[in-house]
């Protein structure tokens, strides 16, 4: 072991019943560097970090963790934290109904004889918030802040615990481009102050921007360690998927634009809960055989616009018209939208899309029960036949259609969600963040499905926060900013800069 290594993990093997999640994984992280761990979903990145932080206690894995020159046997997260290893997960571990300063010191409160010293707590909180460059009233409830700010509070919390090694698990997955950039800058800043970080990320642009070195994991094995000077995107992708991907986006044959199938005319939506217009004068058109993108920052009102079109399940007060196939329609429930041939694949597949403890075949057929039933009685043979067909058609990888959806990987869950809506035979398909949190290989497959559907005459509206995806897949792009429709681009004229400019009005 070299002197400048802060962390060495040596031939770590971790098995779960039926799966080998980690197989002789080796990583080393030098003092004062930003080290990235990249890999497809299911490659074992998160498992490795759980081993490191003691969530999987010593004894449940084999191999060694050597941190700061000592072999460590962490039995729980508390021990790893007290040694200066702090992990920040995708699901933030904050208390939404506590204030900022309370959150920073939960678990290691500043107290005198068990009585809280609030003055010192607040003073310290301000100090750490300054360190992460967050200017926010410390008396605010954390739940009222955006995800980006919450993440910074997590980091401030880590700093307050004398962190030596900061681990961030996909920190930018839920952030918009602005917040992401801030976060990356902060990491570089912390590096200068001597804090080593490990970052797990899907976004290779970030890797190129700030990584000092990286380790690629695939199928629970260490594939390669790459140093700063050798980092390039193609090389990383090749190692991640174990094959060349020439193009991230599949080619689509030239399309023929048909009639307008969906149009919103001066559509406004007022939300009583926040007491303001969340959609403001939206005028969008979608033609047959077209892929249209809704670009914009997170929270700009794109999902809300989609909800308005999809039968207004949140009961916003609407004005303006929605025109489907040339006819103005009134829709009061998603059911009405489905009858109009509209389908909506939601952005949060676990929360709004799938019934996790039911089987694949039950999930797929829930969108049109009439098709598999006669006078209210379900024909199970028919149900399973349809399910088999979709599993084959869009290649959902599962041992059986009777598998519970919760046991599938993210990419396959997303495919089940798409299959569920294809089962309803829609003419218009709205995809809300269709590739969030799924790996490169599965993304490519989703894109291929999109192209196939459009070729069959379907019209698709994609909401995405990833600009490359919008630019790679769409024929036309609308940009939404704070509920306002700020720009429309043909794909020929669109550039990332122009879109960002319109999105940050």
């Amino acid at each position, binding site marked *: 072991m070299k002197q400048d290594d802060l962390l060495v993990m040596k*031939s770590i*093997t971790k*098995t779960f*019943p*039926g799966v*080998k999640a980690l197989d002789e994984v080796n990583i080393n992280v030098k003092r004062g560097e930003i080290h990235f761990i990249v890999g497809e979903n299911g490659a074992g990145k998160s498992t490795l970090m759980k081993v490191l932080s003691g969530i999987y206690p010593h*004894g449940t894995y*084999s*191999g*060694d963790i050597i941190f700061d020159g000592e*072999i460590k046997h962490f039995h729980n997260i508390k021990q790893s934290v007290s040694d200066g290893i702090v992990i920040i997960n995708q699901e933030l571990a904050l208390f939404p109904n506590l204030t900022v300063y309370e959150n920073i010191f939960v678990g290691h409160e500043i107290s005198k004889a068990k009585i809280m010293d609030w003055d010192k707590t607040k003073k310290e909180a301000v100090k750490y918030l300054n360190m992460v460059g967050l200017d926010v009233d410390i008396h605010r409830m954390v739940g009222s802040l955006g995800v980006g700010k919450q993440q910074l509070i997590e980091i401030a919390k880590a700093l307050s615990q004398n962190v030596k090694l900061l681990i961030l698990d996909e920190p930018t997955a839920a952030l918009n481009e602005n917040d992401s950039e801030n976060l990356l800058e902060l990491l570089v800043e912390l590096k200068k102050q001597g804090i080593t970080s490990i970052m797990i990320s899907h976004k290779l642009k970030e890797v190129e921007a700030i990584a000092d070195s990286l380790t690629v994991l695939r199928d629970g094995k260490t594939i390669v360690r790459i140093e700063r000077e050798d980092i390039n995107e193609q090389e990383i992708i090749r190692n991640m998927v174990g094959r060349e991907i020439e193009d991230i986006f599949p080619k689509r044959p030239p399309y023929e634009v048909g009639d307008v199938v969906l149009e919103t005319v001066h559509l406004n939506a007022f939300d009583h809960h926040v007491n303001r217009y969340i959609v403001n004068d939206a005028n969008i058109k979608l033609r047959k055989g077209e892929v249209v993108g809704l670009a914009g920052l997170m929270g700009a009102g794109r999902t809300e616009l989609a909800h308005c079109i*999809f*039968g207004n*399940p949140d009961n916003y007060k609407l004005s303006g018209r929605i025109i489907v196939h040339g006819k103005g329609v009134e829709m009061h*429930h*998603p*059911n009405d*939208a*489905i009858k109009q041939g509209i389908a*909506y694949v*939601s952005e949060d597949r676990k*929360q*709004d*899309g*799938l*019934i*996790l*403890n*039911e089987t694949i075949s*039950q999930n797929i057929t*829930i*969108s049109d*029960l*009439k098709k598999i*039933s006669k006078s*209210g*009685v*379900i024909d*199970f*043979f028919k149900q*399973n*036949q349809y399910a*088999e067909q979709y599993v084959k058609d869009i290649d959902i990888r599962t041992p*059986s*259609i*009777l598998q519970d959806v919760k046991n599938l990987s993210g990419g396959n869950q997303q495919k089940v969600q798409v299959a*569920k809506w294809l089962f*309803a035979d829609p003419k218009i398909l709205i995809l809300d963040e269709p590739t969030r949190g799924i790996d490169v290989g599965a993304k490519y497959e989703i894109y291929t499905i999109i192209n196939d559907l459009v070729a069959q005459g379907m019209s698709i509206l994609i909401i995405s926060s990833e600009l490359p995806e919008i630019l790679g897949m769409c024929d036309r792009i609308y940009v939404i900013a704070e509920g306002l429709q700020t720009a429309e681009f043909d794909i020929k004229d669109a550039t990332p800069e122009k879109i960002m400019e319109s999105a940050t009005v």
Partner: protein
Amino acid sequence: MNILKTIKKVGWIIQKYFLTLMSMIRTNIRDYGMFIALFVIFITFSFMTDWIFLGAINFTNLLNQTAYVSVLAVGMTLVIVTRQIDLSVGYIGAFLGAYVVVGVENLGQPVWLALLGALVITVIVGAGKGILVAKIKVPAFVVTLAGMFIFKGLLMFRTNNRTIPTTHSFFKNLGIGYLPTFDVGGYDLITIVIGGLGILLLIFGGINTRRKNQKLNIPNEKLELFITKTVVMTLILGYLIYTFASFRGISYLLLVTVVVVVIYHFMTTKTTLGRRIYAVGGNPDAAELSGISVEKILVIVFISMGILALISGVMYASRLQNTSPNHGPFWELYAIAAAFIGGTSAAGGVGKVINAVIGSVVIMSLKNGMALAGVDANLEPIILGSVLLLAVIFDIFTRNVRPIDYVGIHYAKQKFGDELRSAQEAFRQAKINLRKAKKEDLDDVIEYEYAFTNAQGELNKIKDKIRVAKEEDFVKK
């Protein structure tokens, strides 16, 4: 020599059958746990009571006692599946029972009119509860707690705070009557014919489904499991038929219960309404966005609960041959307990009506059995509470059971047996060495740590390999 081989072969076939069966039961322990528990309870009480417990008279009586809880538990299962609760059904049931009895006995209404009136009331009340919960978003706990108080009051009004005996033949038939019998040699032929048809339906229905699945290439359950299940079910049904036939045949209370359960089982497993109810319970947001009206489903579930409360209340009053202001308390809690003992998940989306009925039988068996065995009556609620707690703990522990294949493990043990033993030996040795090194405080103690963790890793690897072994891996080779 040949004979020995044949014996060995037959022995392995039998062993394999049981290993497969054990794998299936172990893998699906959540579905079978309660049946095993019920079996244990039955056998225990039978021993304690010299087999009177399972004898014809007591067993028939037990099922009649269970009827009103079973019916409530069926409705409660759906309420809990949709993530709600209904505390009002005990007093609503008792009130509706009183409504019908008082209508017939004191006000001279014909039975059908009294029942119709009660039905109208319960549908309106159910719809009201549903709308309050689903549309106005008052927590179900509060709505139904209020309902519980209100209907307790209404029950006292309706009965005028007096116990009113029933005289009408409708109540007599329903409460203590039996289907017509046709006696042959001390056994009732009608029961035997009905039961026989049931058994035939069970066997041929099962075979038919398997055939159709095979034709359509849909995976079937293992043959071993199917055969065992069918045989066990046939034995149970056979015993029930024998019991009823040798006593007084099938009681109306049992008949009504079975009809309710069959309808609800069919509704929950085979209809679009059932699918929607479970979808709403499993993930209300996803259900709403799939075009299902969550509001409508909740209203339907509360109305169904109300109708079952009506049936339950009338059954209870009929069995006791009176209505009284003292009826009602704890009914809803028994129903909730039965649903939970039956594996219904408080998180929503999971629960079977049949299992809730088994849960009711468990509860009533405890009451009945302990009374029969002469156990101190004060013990009964303590034991019931413990059983409820154990059932839910069991359910939580078995939530993430992974498939196990004992046949594969059997093969793997043969194949990797030597490796396992040598790895165990190496691990033991490494442990001793490490302890020694620590004691002597050697400088290179870290080397022994390495050796120890490596040996542990090797052992775990082989153990894992055996634990997850599947039969197919070995049969192919």
